């Protein structure tokens, strides 16, 4: 075993031992399945405390620079922590927009001042981040955003509305894409990118209830909200480039995220475990040849996704479409999970009809809730259909 391998083994044991001691017990109230569903103060406080504890223990932002609160190690160490979090069925690490999008973006493109001001508090969960990209009339067509930011002295005055603002009602900051110029030839050139405060007059976040019955999304209204001009990231009119870079982090096309553990991970083995306890026609469900064949399909998809991740490290095996595997991860992975959860929720006999809150629901209605919740992944960050366009245009070179 090489020295680094031995070090990683030792680290894994250290993390596992810490988790065995410190992963909080079931708090007795429903915890969100993903960062998109933090809907009560009780959940927020619990998750904030948990993330803070993990960071204090030295297990968050493993590969972020130490001067900003990271651990300055290799990204493989974060991967180990994330894996152990899953293995210990830990509560999620919820400040995802900060940890996975804003943090890597600032480290990549931010000024020294921006980095020192924001990054440590992202890790410690002292400051929560949200994202202001989508608008009620412009979801997937991000280039068309209409929220206005007009410079007046050393401030911008913001008017308009953003939607699907995850964590918006709790957030301290928003990455905001707004139009600073309505007269540009290309719509993209009129956009600017702000690291915008949420707790100022004129900004209101109204929670939106979802299919799951839970909250987490908001519609955010800006009414003559005044934000400091220093919130502008990059140049005025250069917002599109920054937004596109953000999406690369959001979609996992570019690495640098501080924790991939933003949702309760569901593996194909969990599905099989769950279904193996179910009977149909007085016999085990797993003896049904059609179900068996369906499960083989899901197992193949799961394996293909794992293999694709592995293969990305071998460029010689992807020379004809160099960015293809990375750009198709979201398209494939989120759809696979949606179908897998729907399938598991639908193979429970009469119990398929039960939902969270019913004592008779299989695993407390986990699969029903997980299926509905999964639409956050197939719609958020660019819908599956937009992802297909991206792969078609950027990987296969098909026309717009």
């Amino acid at each position, binding site marked *: 075993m090489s020295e680094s391998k031995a070090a990683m083994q030792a680290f894994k044991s250290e993390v596992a031992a810490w988790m065995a001691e410190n992963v909080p017990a079931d708090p007795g109230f429903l915890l969100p399945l993903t960062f998109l569903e933090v809907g009560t103060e009780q959940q927020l406080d619990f998750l904030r405390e948990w993330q803070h504890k993990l960071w204090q223990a030295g297990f968050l932002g493993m590969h972020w620079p130490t001067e900003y609160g990271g651990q300055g190690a290799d990204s493989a160490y974060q991967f180990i922590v994330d894996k152990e979090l899953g293995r210990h069925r830990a509560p999620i690490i919820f400040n995802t927009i900060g940890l996975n999008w804003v943090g890597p973006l600032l480290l990549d493109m931010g000024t020294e001042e921006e980095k020192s001001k924001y990054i440590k508090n992202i890790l410690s969960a002292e400051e929560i981040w949200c994202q202001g990209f989508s608008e009620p009339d412009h979801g997937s067509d991000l280039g068309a955003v209409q929220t206005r930011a007009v410079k007046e002295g050393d401030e911008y005055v913001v008017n308009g509305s953003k939607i699907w603002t995850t964590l918006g009602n709790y957030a301290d900051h928003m990455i905001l894409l707004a139009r600073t110029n309505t007269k540009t030839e290309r719509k993209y050139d009129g956009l600017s990118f702000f690291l915008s405060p949420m707790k100022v007059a004129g900004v209101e976040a109204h929670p939106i209830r979802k299919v799951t019955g839970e909250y987490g999304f908001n519609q955010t209204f800006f009414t003559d909200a005044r934000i400091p001009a220093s919130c502008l990231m990059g140049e005025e009119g250069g917002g599109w480039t920054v937004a596109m870079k953000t999406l690369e982090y959001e979609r996992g096309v570019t690495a640098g995220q501080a924790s991939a553990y933003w949702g309760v991970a569901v*593996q*194909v*083995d969990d599905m*099989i475990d769950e279904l193996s306890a179910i009977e149909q026609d007085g016999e085990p469900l*797993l003896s049904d*040849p059609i179900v*068996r*064949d369906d*499960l*083989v*399909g899901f*197992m*193949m998809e*799961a*394996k*293909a996704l*794992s*293999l*694709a*991740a*592995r*293969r990305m490290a*071998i460029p*010689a*095996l*992807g020379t*004809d*479409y160099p960015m*293809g*595997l990375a750009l*198709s991860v979201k*398209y*494939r992975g989120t759809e696979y999970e949606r179908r897998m959860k729907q399938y598991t929720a639908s193979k429970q006999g009469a119990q398929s009809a039960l939902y969270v809150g019913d004592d008779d629901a299989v695993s407390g209605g986990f699969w029903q809730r997980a299926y509905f919740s999964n639409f956050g992944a197939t719609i958020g960050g660019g819908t599956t*259909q937009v992802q*297909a*366009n991206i*792969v*078609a245009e950027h*990987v*296969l*070179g*098909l*026309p*717009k």
Partner: protein
Amino acid sequence: MSVTPNVTMTFSEEQGMLLDVARGFVRDQAPIDVIRAQLETETGYDPVVWQSMVDMGWAGIALPDSVGGAGMGVGSAVPVFESLGGGLLGTPLLSTTLAGQLIWRAAGEGAASWLARLCSGEVGALALLDHADWGAANCGVSLGSDGCLSGRKCFVADAGVADVFVVVANDNGEPILAIVEATALSSDALSHNVVIDLTKRSANVDFTGVVPVDILRGERVVAALRDTLLLGALLTASETTGAAALCLSGITDYLKTRKQFGKLIGSYQALKHPTVDIYVGMENARSFIYHGASVVDDDPLSEDAETACRMAKVAADDVMVFAGDRSVQFHGGFGFTWDCDSTLFIRRAQWAQQMYGGAIHHRKRLAALLLDS
């Protein structure tokens, strides 16, 4: 057993060079007009091209150097077959490789003289199927007390050009492998099949009355046969994956140049999105074949290797059938003509999907392997 943990994928510099060489060879030696020139010939391939492949050592690509092979491990055949598929280059390499594997796995260096002949470019053929069922025992040909075989084999790939046949047979119920020289066959032993894939050739072969020159028997025969069938699935999948990639580039080229209603047809999502699914399926198949290449070796195949070979075959078949089918459809009226290469792809898809067992054959066995232990 859990399905995901083993994601082994190793790819050495040596294998990388092999992949480059193989792709370059197919690009230079087998452009599509060269392939088309052979579609209606008796053998289906150019002997000069085949000899070049033999000269590069590909006839023994999967065999160890102790018997004249390349000594790169059986997995190194994967990039070669993927590349051949990428040019739809039909040669007897698959038959020869698998005949070599069956002999090697059943008899090892005890059969070195046969393996040396195959490595030097003699064509080997695997006489396997008694009828259409890849899942049957296929030991119907019998060795009589007079030393003669009786019975016939169906759909023997490359039988028309084979020098040596490996015949799966039985001796009083015991599975054996009978080695038969082509020269021992009677003149009317072969009846050629009309094969759906115009780059492939096969025949039914009557072995009745033929005296084998060698008999391989013993406890290794059954495992050797099982593993050769799995390797057949993996290598067919590799060839199919290459063909699917070529088919995909044919589709995207057309979608980027053909205009209808004043627009490039590739801008229509009804064509764009299924093409993305072909791409994703092709990448999946490619991941499975290289995983397969990394977990097969000269030992009896492990459960992980079996899983990999079967998944590779399912993934490659699924994408090729879809790609070939959509290629015809997306090329419109031209797509359904003989002159459109879609013809070659849809025919390759229909041929490949049955070779070494179709998707249902493998999925049924994967279910048992992954759900019942």
